[in-house]
């Protein structure tokens, strides 16, 4: 039995559709369950491939004598 939008249902009574996407940012898999043509449950798993970058740059200490 799995939980769906219309309550607990026997997975054997549902049409199961699976898919996924893979790109440079993430890998995603999803599973959809349909009952009489209606989507009653959708799960998804997103795996991030990388986080975010912050760069720190130290400024030069200039020669102010020439200013």
């Amino acid at each position: 039995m799995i939980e769906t939008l219309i309550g607990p249902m026997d997975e054997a009574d549902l049409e199961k559709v699976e898919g996924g996407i893979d790109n440079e940012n993430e890998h995603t898999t999803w599973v959809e369950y349909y009952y009489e043509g209606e989507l009653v449950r959708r799960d998804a798993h997103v795996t991030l491939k990388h986080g975010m970058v912050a760069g720190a740059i130290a400024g030069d200490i200039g020669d102010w004598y020439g200013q």
Partner: protein
Amino acid sequence: MANSSGIVNSFKIELMQALHSLGPGTNSPARTVSVPDVVKGALYLTSGSLSPSTTTVYSATSEVANSGSYTAGGSTITQANVPTLFSSTGTWNPTANLVWTTFTATAFDTLLVYNSSQGNRAIELCNFGSQTIVAGTFTLTMPAAGAATSLIQLT
């Protein structure tokens, strides 16, 4: 409007002001030794306008609605590892997935990572492909630790 991603600018400054303490570190003055800040992750709709230049704190605007195990503010991010240096890149990477069950939300694409111990100050925005969950489970797995992969990389 659309969400964008990146380390929020305010965090870069607040980090240098010791307003964030990530991981079980021991080098932060005026804090309880080895007690890191609580970092949380919240989900946002594709219709939101979050960006590194404008997002400074957690806000409920454009956040996904309460559903199943998802409640306002999102969930605590497990952080059992200290911030780590890979070559010249300082990194921080969570150690567990974020999982929400019995969850329904349509068209969300952003995770806001923020510091709930320090005034809900924003840390990072992560975009991913727009997701829709129906009475199901959404699992967000963190990237592998590394100089070019950890969730936060300070070069």
